[in-house]
């Protein structure tokens, strides 16, 4: 189903933000919308957006490929994106990540066997004073989790796994 049919209100609201000559600006918010349900953007969604904005599919794909918050293949329903950049690393983020991997039994970049969670290392998230920290990216958008411990994180992951289990 096309985005305009599936989310008529959201699509209309997005398009209303930009002037007619700047219609292409809507590509980024539309991609977030397309990604909402499955956590990734498939080819038909890219075609749909290209048609809606009078640009080529390649131009849409180029945007998907350039930005790290867009994904073009199915991975975990939720992504846990831990900042391991310099300021966080100075406050223990690397050890936090190692411990988290050990607890989950997966490596950075991997997805848990039930498909619930993908663990990723990311660059600065503007929360350097609250390390260790990460964001979750999932069907309900992006949320920050700051001043975290491995125990608190494992608890959160259990909640996420349950939520995914229930929707299956």
């Amino acid at each position, binding site marked *: 189903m096309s985005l305009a049919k599936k989310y008529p209100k959201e699509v209309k609201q997005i398009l209303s933000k930009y002037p007619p000559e*700047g219609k292409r600006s809507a590509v*980024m*918010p539309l*991609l977030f919308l397309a990604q909402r349900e499955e956590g990734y953007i498939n080819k038909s969604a890219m075609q749909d957006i290209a048609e809606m904005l009078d*640009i080529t599919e390649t131009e849409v794909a180029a945007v998907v490929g350039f930005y*790290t918050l867009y994904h073009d293949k199915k991975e975990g329903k939720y992504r846990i994106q831990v900042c391991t*950049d310099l*300021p966080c690393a100075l406050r223990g983020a690397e050890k936090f990540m190692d411990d988290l991997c050990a607890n989950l039994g997966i490596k950075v970049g991997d997805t848990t066997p039930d498909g619930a969670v993908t663990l990723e290392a990311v660059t600065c998230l503007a929360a350097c004073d609250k390390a260790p920290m990460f964001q979750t990216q999932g069907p309900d958008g992006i949320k920050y989790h700051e001043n975290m411990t491995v125990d608190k994180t494992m608890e959160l992951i259990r909640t996420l796994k349950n939520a995914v289990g229930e929707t299956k």
Partner: protein
Amino acid sequence: MAQILLRHREIPDINKLPVYKKNGGFAAFKNAVTKMKPAEVTEVVKNSGLRGRGGAGFPTGMKWSFIDNKNWPHYVVANADESEPGTFKDREIMEGNPFQFLEGVAIASYAVGANVAYVYLRGEFWELAASLDEKIAEMEEAGYLGDKLFGTNYSLRMYTHLGAGAYICGEETALLESLEGKRGQPRVRPPFPPAVGLYGKPTVINNVETFANVPMILANGAEWYKTMGTADSAGVKIFSLSGRVRKPGNYELPFGTTFRDLIYKHGGGVQDSRTVKAIMPAGASSSLILVDNDKILDTPMDYATVRTLGADLGSASVIVVDDTVPMDWLVNKTVHFFKHESCGKCTPCREGTYWMSHLTERIHGGHGSKADVDLLLNVAKQMQGKCLCALGEFSTMAVVSGIERFRQDFDHAVKA
């Protein structure tokens, strides 16, 4: 001293419209629209000495005065892409004192004749964008946004726009590309945005903190603002303090505050009572300031004085590095960041960050030689002055200053 930007720390609920209004909110905007000519508003900002808080420190009023009045419509864009490692001030402003920031955007829009303003937030600020959307809707309802404001002919609308994870979009022309729905790659300049900006139209882009200063300057006057800070750097600045300190966080202080006051008086000193080995005053884009004698810490933090230490104040994201940190590790970190964030448009940056990351990885991993350290320095210096935008330049800062000022750490890493 009373807070000027982080007022939410002193006034509870100032992120709610009635409280903001009760504390003088939107009086400056109303006064500007109903009683001042746009050029007069720009003149006040110019006279205040306000300089851009995003890192470059360009005089704000002067930027506004460059807007091309022969080409219409005009746009104002707020740069809320805050992505420099070590910087987390804009987020606090937008969460704690959002209306002051939005009022600043509105005043700037009036000053340059823009009827539409966009707030470009990094994609990670998802929840923040939703909250700003609510604030913008409240402003519309209260008559601070919309058509014929305060009974005049001036109209203004404001929209948020989310990026999707790309440090380069903090560079203003890359931000514009991104806002236009393209990959965020910098444009060749000139022309600069006040001549050719969003959709090819004259555009003023400022950082969130810059905008947040504007209502206070309009309300209290340019002279008042200049009583704070130094002659070169007027006013207050939010210093984002991170790294090996006991109390990391944002500290709003006048320009000219010393590193020592920031780190010890406000930041509670260094963790485990270690000593400061190096300071990065502008986040990962900084040259490393070598702290080899105690006097360095007494340097006042303003644009001109920090430069005498061979570094830039930038966005004042002060990362404190203590004597337990090996510089080959640190430089490996910053280089990987820039390699990841290089947009790939220009060759020196795309290839340079790639090769530097191979070298820093090898050196830090204990597989390098002294010749690798020399080669790394050589690659970094070859990149300097040749990149399309500042990102490429920034990627070399920690490398060159790290090797030149902390050579022993690199020699130790390759000897082991």
